[in-house]
């Protein structure tokens, strides 16, 4: 008996140390990101510039690099967390902002705002419209699911249908657009963190950080959900409620992340899997681990994207896939037993 307890503690320790390792990694990457850029400031200058209160170095660190880093962490962490929730409540390894149609409806929101000259009225109209449409589609899926009593299959099918619907609407608008509009739309879909300032971070952090503690508190329920609806119900989980609220919160987070950074929803699919492959499916550890993986992934991608080919920026959506996919395959090949 004692032996099993010891073993359990050992496993937990391993998981905990992975989470701590990721946190340290994130901190390290953030420091590197803070010291890299177009200006010739070295690592030491960059760190000392944090504590200055004026000058161009101060402006670069405080107004350009730091917001970018914080937004990358927020977006990456948020998308990964939301992806984990989607995969848990739908019990499907393919669930992500893409499969649920949230990414494509957000994209459609951005496209309409661009075509109808949104950026003329307000800089936030594109992001706002993307956010609105992302939420609209997830509420649509929820109401369909409610009519059909919340089975994961109906939600995924509804999501895929929504995805096709909104992507063809976006294509239609792109087809009608002028050269400049199509340019702008393509740029938006590539994703970018260049436009981020403290104001955007304020809005995004409220929408991403507020639902997070609630999701974390439900870790046990998500664990039980993995055993199937019946078993979870038998153990006292309100399956319908957790599925609905989980969907609402995860959609909110996804919508916020995508509308500010563009469609990099791929993180939401791959980061939870990377974390799960390393530490398994216990949501107590899976949530923080996958959020940290997502944050590291997006921050690394953005830092590489803006430094590899400086001063030209390789769009973040492209770099994320470039570094995420090979790593994902590496883990997939290394893993001997079935992990999902």
């Amino acid at each position, binding site marked *: 008996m004692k032996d099993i307890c010891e073993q359990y503690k050992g496993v937990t320790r391993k998981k905990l140390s992975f989470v701590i390792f990721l946190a340290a990694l994130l901190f390290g990457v953030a420091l590197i990101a803070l010291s890299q850029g*177009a200006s010739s400031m070295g690592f030491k200058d960059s760190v000392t510039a944090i504590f200055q209160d004026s000058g161009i170095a101060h*402006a670069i660190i405080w*107004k350009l690099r730091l917001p970018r880093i914080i937004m990358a962490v927020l977006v990456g962490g948020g998308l990964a967390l939301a992806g984990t929730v989607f995969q848990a409540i739908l019990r499907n390894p393919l669930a992500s902002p893409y499969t649920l149609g949230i990414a494509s409806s957000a994209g459609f929101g951005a496209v309409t705002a661009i075509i109808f000259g949104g950026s003329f009225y307000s800089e936030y109209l594109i992001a706002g419209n993307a956010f609105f449409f992302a939420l609209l589609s997830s509420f649509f899926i929820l109401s369909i699911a409610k009519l059909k009593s919340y089975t994961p299959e109906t939600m995924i099918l509804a999501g895929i249908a929504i995805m096709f619907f909104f992507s063809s609407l976006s294509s239609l608008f792109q087809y009608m657009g002028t050269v400049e509009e199509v340019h702008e739309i393509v740029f938006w879909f590539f994703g*970018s963190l260049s436009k981020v300032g*403290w104001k955007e971070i304020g809005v995004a952090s409220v929408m991403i950080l507020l639902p997070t503690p609630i999701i974390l508190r439900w870790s046990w329920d998500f664990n039980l959900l993995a055993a199937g609806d019946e078993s979870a119900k038998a153990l006292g989980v309100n399956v319908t409620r957790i599925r609905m609220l989980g969907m609402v919160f995860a959609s909110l987070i996804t919508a916020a992340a995508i509308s500010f950074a563009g469609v990099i929803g791929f993180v939401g699919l791959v980061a939870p899997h990377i974390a799960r492959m390393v530490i398994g499916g216990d949501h107590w550890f899976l949530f923080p681990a996958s959020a940290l993986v997502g944050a590291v992934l997006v921050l690394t991608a953005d830092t590489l994207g803006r430094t590899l080919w400086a001063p030209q*920026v390789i769009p973040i959506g492209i770099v994320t896939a470039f570094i995420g996919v090979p790593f994902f395959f590496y883990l997939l090949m290394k893993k001997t037993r079935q992990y999902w």
Partner: protein
Amino acid sequence: MKKYFTIICITTLLFCLLVSGETVTREAMAGESISIKDAAGRSVEVSLPIKKLVVLTSDALEIIRALKAEDLVIGVYSDISRNSQFWPKLKDKPKVGNWKGLNYELVAELNPDIVLCYSQRPGRDMERKLEPFGVKVIRLDFFRLGTLEKEVAVLGRILKKEKEAMDIIAWYRKNLELIQKGLKNISDQPDVYIEGDSKYHTAGPGSGGHEMCVLAGGHNIASNLSIPYPEITPEWILMNNPNLIVKTTTKSTCGTSYSMTDAIPLKRIRDRVMARPAWENIRAVKENKVFVMANEIWTGPRAIIGTGYMAKWFYPDAFKEFDPKKLHKEYLEKFQSIKYQGVYVYPNEN
């Protein structure tokens, strides 16, 4: 048997006659046939005279109107209704498609002699699909100052409007020389940051915007980048500390410039550019040298006007007498036969 043979012989003979008669009449109608080089550098055979035109780009349409060949246009690009004030005579013509694609059935029905479009879009299968209908595709861009004259001359030849083409070319040359003359005695080139519609997307070498900036005597800070429309980091702009910023904007962000009556939309765009995080450290922002230019006079047939504005912004003293607005007015009234109106730049020239 003999009867059948006779019938077959007669039918064959009749068929031959019919076919040869057809070719004879076609040749007689075709008249002269010329070979031209399009914007992509390909040779295209065109039979003259051209009587009916379908035009897929506003750039080409503007040149056609300048060549006084507006009456030949029987089909236009679909978006023309967005700018109906600018195209009073053409706005109601059949809309056949846009720069990306067209409605083949409608084009076949209209049966034009040629379709005018950009060199890259729509794709090359357009030529193949239109060939059975005897419709030639002529690909001319009209958005690069460097090739504009050549393209105008080509179109002038096709439409038999050589004299009109020479008039426009002469006008371009005159004004280009005027700008070059103004730039003769300048020493310090200002560093310029150009931005398109999307935030932090600039115009590098290979783009029409870069070409204009150079012609206007500016030093584009993106001149050693490798792609035409790259996204760049805000930090890089800050480090390059440009003397001037030129932000261009398209119709979609402020309505069409021709129908615009006040400068508020352009002012708003400028205010937002100046308020970007950390940009208070940039010389251009400190010295209030941030300019907004409408897409209409940016790359395109009116690029010379945009270039004129830029030269004036770069070297206000050398170009004190030079009036780009007058240039624009002259262009619209003389070549486009419409009255001058609209707002195209901010801050205003006066």
